[in-house]
């Protein structure tokens, strides 16, 4: 097996758009199943009452990460041909902070807001318009912030290389961290539920 298939020219660009659409359907379906079409559910992550965001996100990351690792180990997937962005540390840290603030203010992230909008959430639709406005402002300001945008360029950084650990070691650490976070989330949810029922009486 020679994956990624597209990178080995197994199908054309036009077919890749069909693939995109199908993968998108899977993505949207999963997001809606998880409750990510509702800003209240997404936001409750940040008040420790419903930790679905963390649970879904980290189970997805762990699943895909394990899948990639074993596909590479079986020689099925050439990881060097799988695209991911270069690391520009400071802009990404600042961008992440802005995005986090936007998450709790707006209640969605771009992917989830699509699902929200299509399932009738007016705030989701407005959020999407906001996203486009933000992108427009970014584009207009780009000449001014270009230097900052491309600062601290570290190139393509693979976490195991950066940490000086083996790939398998980092995979195990991420799995353990995720399982730990899940356990903490379950415990936290029970605590919050108990506290809430106590307050309400």
């Amino acid at each position, binding site marked *: 097996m020679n994956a990624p298939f597209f990178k080995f020219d197994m199908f054309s660009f036009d077919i890749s758009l069909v693939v995109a659409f199908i993968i998108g359907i899977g993505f949207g379906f999963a997001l809606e199943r998880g409750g990510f079409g509702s800003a209240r559910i997404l936001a409750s992550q940040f008040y420790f009452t419903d930790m679905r965001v963390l649970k879904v996100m980290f189970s997805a990351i762990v699943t895909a990460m394990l899948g990639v690792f074993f596909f590479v180990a079986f020689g099925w997937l050439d990881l060097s*041909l799988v695209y991911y962005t270069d690391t520009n540390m400071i802009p990404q840290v600042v961008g992440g902070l802005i995005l986090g603030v936007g998450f709790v203010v707006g209640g969605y992230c771009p992917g989830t807001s699509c699902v929200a909008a299509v399932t009738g959430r007016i705030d989701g639709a407005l959020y999407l318009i906001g996203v486009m406005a933000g992108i427009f402002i970014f584009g207009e300001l780009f000449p001014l912030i270009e230097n900052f945008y491309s600062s601290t360029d570290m190139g393509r950084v693979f976490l195991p290389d950066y940490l000086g650990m083996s*790939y398998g070691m980092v995979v*195990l650490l991420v799995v353990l961290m995720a*399982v730990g976070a*899940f356990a903490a989330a*379950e415990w936290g949810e029970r605590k919050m539920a108990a506290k809430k029922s106590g307050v309400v009486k």
Partner: protein
Amino acid sequence: MKLLNFILGLDVKIKLAAIAIFLGLTAFIISDPFDNAHAKINVKELALIVQNEVDHVNVDELADWIIKSKTDYRLVDIRTEKEFNEYNIPGSENIPITSLFDGQLARNEKIILYSEGGIHSAQAWFLLKAKDFRNVYMLRGGLEEWKDKILFPKLGVNASDDENARFEIASAISRYFGGTPQIVSGNEITVSVEIPKVAPKIQTPTGSAAGTAKKKKREGC
């Protein structure tokens, strides 16, 4: 039996966590999934490729590509750095044979290998093929043939019109690459070859990963 019932009776969350940890531990034991040292080969397929000679690129083909500034391939000089610095084909990059698997080449790229003669590039071709690189070719005759046919094309004194016409074209190509066309008379073999010292200043494909990457659009989110 009791153990089985106990396991089946566990909450789905616990089961999933156990599977994840098990797979994580397996990953930890495998440790490094990238195996760059070993390969499995399909000998029949390779033998067939060799027999059908679909693994070659001729020097005049390559010269044509360079002149036309084609960029869909990477030209790789697998000799040592010292040899590379003395002379190399314009647009080539130096990846010594021992560094072939250091991650500079991608398995979906069109790669053309050359060495001094043909032997080293043939061996490197075999190694890359064994590692499942898709589009690997070697320059037939290597640098020797490149010098012979492209840089210093020869014409006998009593050549036919046809040969003369072809020599005209060859001379033009030769000068393009900074070479010197040779006219060889009968018995005496006075071939004064001077290898072009500096790579001629012509627009050639860089051939680097940056060059082949689509510069039109970004891939990410």
